[in-house]
């Protein structure tokens, strides 16, 4: 009898838990809905509904947002795809920052993480502490040091000024280090190849076993660079090299229809990448949370 009551209680409390969760989730769902539906609206409808919020003409007309578009139209999308070549330049610019940065993080970071996780040598603990301390510093602290080097190397306004500091960042090293740490030694020894040298062991044993944490670093790195604002703003003076993240706020001020669709294009790759790698992303977040 008591057990039945208990399970009933559990069911009730489960149901009660749904209410606040749905209420809070609406804050996220609504944003996605807004972005999706807004991109399907014709320019006229956008102007008639949310246009009031951006007009700043002193009128008292308030903005509103219809649940579904009344006059769906694809002109803003078509215009973006056909009439705005500079949009594609910016889109491409973003990839030209993201791909080398993330590749660099993996190629440079994975061996370093392997060394810190698997080898025992003097100074190892200090090195790990250095990586953690750097990982915890916000851009405002590393901005001046980065600038001093970039300026000395003559890389100002060069894409490398953004790519290199990202490629050498400490966070991915730390995540992969945690990942390699999590691989049981016995498994490593079982998989190790007799007489193989350190490089072969790393490539054939370490890398395959470290895949989850490598993917975690990949996903977090992608999201970080894709949305980066401070770094390109500080180190890329020439607007023709700007990524989408710097370009978008400008068109928001100029053209509502374009801004809506362009925002969606900025959002989509990040969301898709997120959905693809959510499992690994969670792993990466947890890795940072484990006390060593």
């Amino acid at each position, binding site marked *: 009898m008591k057990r039945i009551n208990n399970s009933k209680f559990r069911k009730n409390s489960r149901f009660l838990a749904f209410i606040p*969760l749905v209420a809070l*989730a609406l804050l996220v769902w609504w944003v996605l809905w807004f*972005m999706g539906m807004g991109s399907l609206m014709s320019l006229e409808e956008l102007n008639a509904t949310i246009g009031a919020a951006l007009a700043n003409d002193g009128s008292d007309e308030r903005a509103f947002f219809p649940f579904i578009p009344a006059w769906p139209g694809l002109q803003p999308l078509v215009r973006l795809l056909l009439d705005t070549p500079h949009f594609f330049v910016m889109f491409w610019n973003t990839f030209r920052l993201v791909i080398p940065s993330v590749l660099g993080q993996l190629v*440079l970071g994975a061996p370093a993480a392997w060394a810190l996780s698997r080898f025992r040598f003097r100074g190892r603990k200090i090195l790990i502490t250095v990586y953690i301390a750097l990982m915890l510093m916000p851009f405002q602290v*590393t901005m001046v*040091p980065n600038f001093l080097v970039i300026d000395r190397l003559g890389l100002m306004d060069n894409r490398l000024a953004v790519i290199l500091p990202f490629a050498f960042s400490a966070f991915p090293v730390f995540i992969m280090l945690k990942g390699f740490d999590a691989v049981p030694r016995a498994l490593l020894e079982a998989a190790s190849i007799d007489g193989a040298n350190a490089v072969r062991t790393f490539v054939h044993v370490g890398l395959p076993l470290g895949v989850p944490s490598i993917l975690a670093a990949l996903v977090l790195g992608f999201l970080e660079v894709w949305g980066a604002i401070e770094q390109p703003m500080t180190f890329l003076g020439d607007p023709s090299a700007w990524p989408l993240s710097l370009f978008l*706020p400008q068109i928001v001020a100029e053209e509502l229809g374009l801004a809506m669709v362009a925002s969606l294009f*900025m959002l989509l790759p990040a969301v898709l990448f997120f959905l693809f790698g959510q499992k690994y992303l969670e792993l990466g*977040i947890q890795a940072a949370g484990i006390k060593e």
Partner: protein
Amino acid sequence: MSKIFAITLQSGRKYVSQYVRRSEGVTALAFLAPSFAGILIFFLIPFADTVRRSFYDVRGVNFIGLQSYTSVINNAAFRLAATNTLRFVAICIPLLLLISLGIALLIRCIRPHNALFKTTFLLPMAVPVASIVLLWQVVFNDNGLANSVLEFFNLNAVNFMGSGAAFWVLVFTYLWKNTGYNMILWLAGLDSISDTLYEAAHVDGANKWQSFRYVTLPCLLPTIGIVSILSLLNSFKVFREAYLVAGAYPHDSMYLLQHLFNNWFVQMDVSRLSAAATMLAVVLLVIILLIRGFLDEKD
């Protein structure tokens, strides 16, 4: 017996490890070199130079002692920015910790059907700030959706971007974006608490609140530390929202240290910037060490 065995094993390991250490050191160096060279070139060496420059004039030639530091501390914009940043952190982090812990607990209540909600709350961290600038303006502009809603409930419209409310808009954005990240950390912390503890509490007649207060909370202590450290560091990223929506000089209530750094950079005020960066690094390191020290003591 097993103790003796362990000791022999340990001393044996010591011999082996001394030998291994030398040969492994060389290999480790080879693996580490590319990454660490970059760390040295892009972060450590120039940071030392930054500290040096904070004691020199703008050209980095003449020693001026603590002049840059006093000039930073006496600077009105710095004081405003530092106060706002402190206020922001002091309000946001406790709020964020509470809300994300609440969500984590709720999400555990509805196990195993919680995947949708986990994804939902984590998603904002993937949303690039630039892609929601438009939405922000549509919501918080004078004639925006937030005011439409207020009007619907017969409440007075608020000038969100041009008054002290701007600060709270920023707080809301920070919470929106970071709740999921912390939720994952809390969930990991909650998962690591062994069920036997709860069973023991149940046997002792503890009710739900008591088992939360005396089992869950103490077990979450280590998580609280790391969650606060990471929340503090993520709080520096709200600059993106603030800057993209309100520009380099937003309403006074949300003029943060990040704005100040950015503006001094534009003015190429290297000495003051170096002094400010050094101070920020020191303050952050002290806070991190304090939190960690506090936790180690608790363990």
